[in-house]
């Protein structure tokens, strides 16, 4: 990066550190923070959409749709999310390749042969001659789908709870005015439910932030990957030899996440304080006496 970095072995102290922290691999490490933020920015709206669909489906009048919605809404209750994070990408990948195998290959050989999953070269995803960045993007794409499905299920949970919290009398009043089901949904249920859903959704945002390091499990070169890669002890064969520094890299990541959640937390705290003002509880009492709760 800097002109004096040409021979790192001659450098000392701060000059060495400045060169070390701006080496090519470190720039990739900094870029991977962008990957995390990108994942957040893409996943949050998609998950909200999935959640909305799931919540609406679980209230549907068509039985199979209702069952599907109910299953989707409750799937995160009993099963750890990490199982889904491991399962969804590989299952999707095999599903895509299977479909392509049926369409593009003209062999009759079964896809599953013992412990192997065999598709012809034309059906591989991504193609074996594809550029490396295609593989990276495909990996991130599968990760985004996995995150969206799992967090969609969480959001469906929150939203269906919020829909049930909308006072029944309001919906009945709307019906009494002669609105159709669709009109009731659009004009009363959905605008009303956000008030009830807001606390749950802001929690979900925090949850999503804290789930992003799981990208590492999906094989994406994210911040955890680079922290392990860069922090591991480097022998003198490398241009910047150093002992095992992984702890410092992980502390850096910790600070990043604490900063992210701190900002979100400030906003939540303000809302909580607002809600307990004037209540005849210990929290309200503490506020009244002027001591911070």
């Amino acid at each position, binding site marked *: 990066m800097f002109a004096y970095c040409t021979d790192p072995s001659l450098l000392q102290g701060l000059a060495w550190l400045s060169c070390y922290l701006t080496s090519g691999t470190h720039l990739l490490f900094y870029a991977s923070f962008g990957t995390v933020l990108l994942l957040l920015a893409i996943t949050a709206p998609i998950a909200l959409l999935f959640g909305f669909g799931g919540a609406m489906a679980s209230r549907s009048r068509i039985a199979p749709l209702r069952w599907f919605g109910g299953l989707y809404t409750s799937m995160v209750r009993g099963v750890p999310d990490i199982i889904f994070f491991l399962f969804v990408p590989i299952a999707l990948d095999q599903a895509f390749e299977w479909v392509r195998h049926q369409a593009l290959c003209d062999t009759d050989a079964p896809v599953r042969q013992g*412990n192997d999953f065999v598709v012809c070269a034309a059906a591989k995803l991504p193609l074996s001659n594809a550029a490396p960045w295609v593989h990276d993007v495909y990996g991130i794409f599968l990760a985004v789908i996995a995150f969206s499905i799992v967090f969609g299920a969480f959001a469906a*949970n929150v939203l269906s709870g919020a829909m049930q919290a909308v006072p029944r009398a309001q919906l009945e009043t709307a019906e009494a005015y002669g609105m159709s089901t669709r009109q009731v949904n659009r004009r009363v249920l959905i605008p009303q439910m956000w008030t009830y859903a807001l606390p749950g959704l802001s*929690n979900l945002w925090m949850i999503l932030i804290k789930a992003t390091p*799981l990208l*590492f*499990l999906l094989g994406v070169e994210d911040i955890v990957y680079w922290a392990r890669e860069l922090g591991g002890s480097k022998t003198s064969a490398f241009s910047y030899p150093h002992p095992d520094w992984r702890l410092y890299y992980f502390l850096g990541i910790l600070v990043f*996440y*604490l900063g992210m959640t701190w900002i979100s937390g400030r906003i939540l705290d303000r809302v909580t304080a607002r809600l307990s003002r004037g209540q005849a509880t*210990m*929290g309200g009492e503490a506020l009244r006496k002027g001591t911070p709760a």
Partner: protein
Amino acid sequence: MSCVQTIMDYGLRSIGLGERLLPRADYNLCQQATLIGSGLIWNLYFAVLALSVGFVIATALAVAKASANPWLRKPADAFIFVFRGSPLFIQFFIAYESLVLLPRAGIDIFGMTVQTSWLTRAWAGALVVLILNTAAYSAQIFHGALMSVPKGEVEAADAYGLTGWKRFRRVVWPTMLRLAWPSYTNEAIFLFHATTLVYFSGFPAFQQKGDALYYASYFADRTFNPFVAYPIAAAYFIAATLALIWVFGRVNRRLNRHLPGATSRVRYRPQLMR
């Protein structure tokens, strides 16, 4: 090899008893179900110990957080903030990396050598992280409940001349638990589910002794077939979660036994995840 034989061989494989070598070829359903089930022992071990130790620490932390004394309140706030504000996954890595840095030979304290190598093993190191993590999350829940204890109950306790520990033990604490229990049930479910992270973070599975998900991903990797091993693991977790909800539901009923009709079913709300 019959299924009974497989269960005899691999039923306790995750804690190092029975057959040492994992199956290598033609993995059948029985082997997968047995080994994944044997891994569940570790999930239960982590969940039960972390929840019981974490509960005690969480109560103390919640009281400290509600204290008017800044010397108690600030450290409790900071502890809760750090553990709730960062991903559990990262906490595991940091714990492992710092425990590895401890001297191999042990630390000399007053001429006694304290062994430290066992701390880098998952059963101890990961357990410590899980305890501290659940303590922070539960403390936040308990603090919220403590703030919601009706003012009248505390005033009534004052009127009866109850003070200090006695007032806390007999009036404030039971009400706090009663109010916190639905959220605490969710926290327990999430902690139980979070135990699957242990062997996917820094902590290595020593001699292939891992948890349910460790074996599930072992099989999925070997057979290239995620559609068998992961559903088996999921089924085990659903069963264990239902058992956990049942136990916590019983406790909830007991906590609310003086309020007939107040025991609502504990609703699942995903408030907390690492």
